[in-house]
């Protein structure tokens, strides 16, 4: 074993009922390096981190910290051993001061009482020396930005850590200059001999900051690479695997049906800290795709359009009418529909029946005093169960008893029942079996042929390539390009994503 190895994991396996989350994965972190852990969703990154930090119990394998075997059974124990973790959401108390957040639970005391002066002094020194930031540590955490809060969490972690720092998606709520500040801190810690495990979905950041990259895919170790010897394209291919090359869909779209008129037009719509300005338009009967890796701003864009998140800037025009402040109710009135990404928490109401779930959007559109007669409800439910081939014994079955694909179809029916003019579909095929997947894709094309506009969001690029008339490519919350007609292919989208760094830079400046 290498003498400068800090944390080494060997042959880690972890299974959940029905899934092998990690199989025989090796990982090693050296002193004074920043090591990125990469992989698509479900690749096993978070499982590996949870195993390392003692939150999950491994099935097989060994973990060595500075050449001695450890087996942390809880996050507390891992912390005691010197492995500190900072998560995406800041786990601190906003109502307490910066200093107190760092030292609570181990406050400096004098004669049995908390020595506030000493606490403030120590906090100031810690932030200055380790993180090189100077702030008023007496002020409450809530008065500082997310970035400073993150720094406070890191300071707390560094102060209790003896060498290993795990940063899980620390940059997802930071803007560019804040990220730079964080990177300075990371480099500073690195030069002091700390080993940092960095998890991020942002490719640029990974290339900028890390010394080595470990790639996981489907719970398997794909490899460990020197960052300087790896190109973006190679990394993306390793993360995604080879499968994407084969196009799956045989049906081709009918571009001829697209009307010349714009249904919806957006200029410079943005929300600070969430999405940078977007410009897009959707014609009637057009299928517009939003492509990009996770965290590129796909869902954020959709939420801005549907008014779930309020925009700070920009204009939204629907059928020549300027909408000043969009909200979901208005969106439904204007003929928009939104199938959310997270079906479980944002889509279905598990306790209600299939029929009741289908009626929600239509009822909302008609207003609460306009009760839809049961007879009509049943007719509508019957129609869509048949049309979308929803497999259920009865429309009065609770929706939570259905499979993922069938739940998705019920959500789609919910919006189809409102006769939408524009349907926003955020990852409609995620977690859906292959048969339903193809049915949903076919439905998208059929709807477009009938003149419904579709905004289609999917992480599966071949799906985007197969369904869309036009694709807007996003990256790191910037709109970086657009592909149309024949030019839409997985390869071109990937090229745009991996080479779009320059575009992001120039847009940012």
């Amino acid at each position, binding site marked *: 074993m290498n003498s400068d190895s800090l944390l080494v994991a060997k042959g880690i396996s972890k299974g959940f009922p029905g899934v092998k989350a990690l199989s025989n994965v090796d990982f090693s972190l050296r002193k004074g390096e920043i090591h990125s852990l990469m992989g698509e969703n479900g690749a096993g990154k978070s499982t590996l981190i949870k195993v390392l930090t003692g939150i999950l119990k491994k099935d097989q394998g060994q973990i060595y910290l500075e050449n001695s075997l450890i087996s942390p059974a809880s*996050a*507390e124990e891992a*912390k005691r051993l010197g492995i500190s973790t900072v998560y995406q959401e800041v*786990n*601190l*108390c*906003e*109502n*307490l001061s910066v200093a*107190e957040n760092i030292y*609570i*639970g181990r*406050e400096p005391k004098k004669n049995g*009482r*908390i020595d506030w002066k000493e606490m403030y002094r120590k906090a100031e020194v810690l932030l200055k020396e380790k993180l*090189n*930031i*100077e*702030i*008023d540590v007496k*002020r*409450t955490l*809530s*008065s*500082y*930005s*997310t*970035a*400073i809060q993150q720094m406070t969490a890191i300071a707390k972690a560094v102060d209790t850590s003896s060498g290993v720092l795990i940063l899980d998606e620390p940059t997802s709520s930071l*803007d560019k*200059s*804040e990220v730079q*500040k964080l990177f300075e801190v990371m480099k500073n810690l690195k030069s002091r001999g700390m080993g940092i495990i960095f998890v991020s979905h942002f490719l640029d950041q990974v290339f900028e900051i890390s010394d080595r990259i470990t790639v996981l895919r489907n719970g398997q170790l794909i490899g460990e690479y020197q960052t300087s010897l790896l190109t973006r394209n190679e990394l993306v291919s390793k993360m995604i695997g080879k499968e994407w090359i084969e196009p799956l869909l045989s049906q081709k779209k009918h571009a001829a049906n697209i009307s010349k008129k714009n249904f919806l037009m957006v200029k410079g719509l943005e929300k*600070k*800290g969430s999405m940078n300005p977007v410009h897009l338009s959707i014609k009637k009967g057009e299928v517009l795709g939003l492509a990009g890796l996770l965290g590129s701003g796909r869902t954020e864009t959709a939420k801005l359009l549907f008014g779930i998140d309020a925009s700070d800037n920009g204009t939204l025009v629907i059928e020549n009418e300027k909408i000043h402040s969009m909200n979901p109710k208005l969106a439904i009135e204007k003929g928009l529909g939104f199938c959310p990404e997270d079906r479980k928490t944002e889509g279905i109401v598990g306790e209600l029946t299939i029929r009741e779930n289908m009626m929600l959007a239509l009822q909302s559109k008609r207003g609460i005093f306009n009760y839809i007669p049961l007879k009509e409800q049943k007719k509508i439910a019957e129609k869509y169960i048949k049309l979308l081939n929803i497999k259920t014994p009865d429309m009065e079955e609770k929706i939570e008893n259905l499979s993922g694909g069938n739940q998705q179809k019920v959500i789609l029916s919910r919006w189809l029942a409102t006769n939408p003019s524009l349907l926003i579909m955020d990852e409609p095929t995620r977690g859906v079996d292959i048969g339903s997947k193809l049915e949903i894709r076919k439905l998208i094309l059929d709807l477009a042929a009938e003149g419904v506009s579709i905004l289609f969001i999917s992480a599966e690029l071949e799906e985007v390539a197969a369904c869309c008339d036009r694709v807007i490519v996003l990256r790191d919350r910037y709109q970086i390009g657009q592909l149309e007609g024949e030019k839409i292919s997985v390869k071109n989208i990937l090229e745009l994503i991996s080479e779009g760094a320059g575009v992001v830079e120039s847009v940012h400046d």
Partner: protein
Amino acid sequence: MKKISHRINENNIIIIATLFLIVLLYGYGSLSFTGFLSMQVFLNLFIDNAYLIIIATGMAFVIITGGIDLSVASFVAFVSIITASLLEHGLHAYLVILLTLLLGIIFGAGQGYLIFRFQLHPWIVTLAGMFLARGLCYLISTESVEITDNTFMFLSDYKLYVMGENYISIGVVLSIIFVAAAIYLSKYTSFGRYVYAVGGNVSSARLMGLPVGKTTIMVYTLSGFSSALGGFVFTVYMQSGYALHLMGMEMDAIAACVIGGILLTGGAGYLIGPVLGVLSMGMIQTIIMFQGTLSSWWTKIVVGFLLFLFILLQRLIVIRRGKKRMHSIADLHTDSASTKQHASIS
């Protein structure tokens, strides 16, 4: 300017507003009514409300963790009646006092344990505690029981003279000690800080490895103890035990906390706040008493109005805090020197 603006911040603005209110009320009373501006009238505020100061201060800890304790008023009635009947049976006064304080601790700890162990809503648990304590009162006696015990008579009549002719009662002394201890507890002990952490963000507190369960049980225990102590002070003040004593007083305690700047959402407020809340409510009562023609229900009306005002003020602070957060995202755009500068603004 900078110094002043530094002292008045969003954390203590409600305290300052309450202080201002007290001065305003006192000034109005002094100018309008002859005899209002006497030291004894002011001290009577403390004598009449000593029990409420103790109970509201105990309740403040519960509210800071984000909880509530509705059982306090019933428990005071329970303490009054159990004290009266035990004394009637010839038990020694000090033993009775010790016993009731112990009962308060057990009662509070029990409520806290239920709330934490079964993740029950404090409203429900303490509502049940409220009915239970009030019900137990009737079980002991439905009539008012007068206290004729010598020790209690002595404690009741005892006058501690301050500044010449003016005096305070034993209850006032106890309440001052209690408040001072509470302030120390909240500021200089780990327990006190955990109370704020739990109220700020429970899941964060848990992830930071703080003893959330112990803290939760402790605050309800403290509130139970304070209602027992407040009950003792009240019993001495009233010289009787009665099941119908202080109906609805728990709401007065909550109101005192709110007016004193303890946020009902938890995590914020100073322990001096409830005292100021009680004083301003007492001041209103005194003014109405001096005024003579208004019925005492006007106290409730004015306090109700004040509550609206203070809750609105709290809400505005929370909203402002949210807005400030948005602005301060620009914090890191500049170098550390100007960050420091930014920190000194507000």
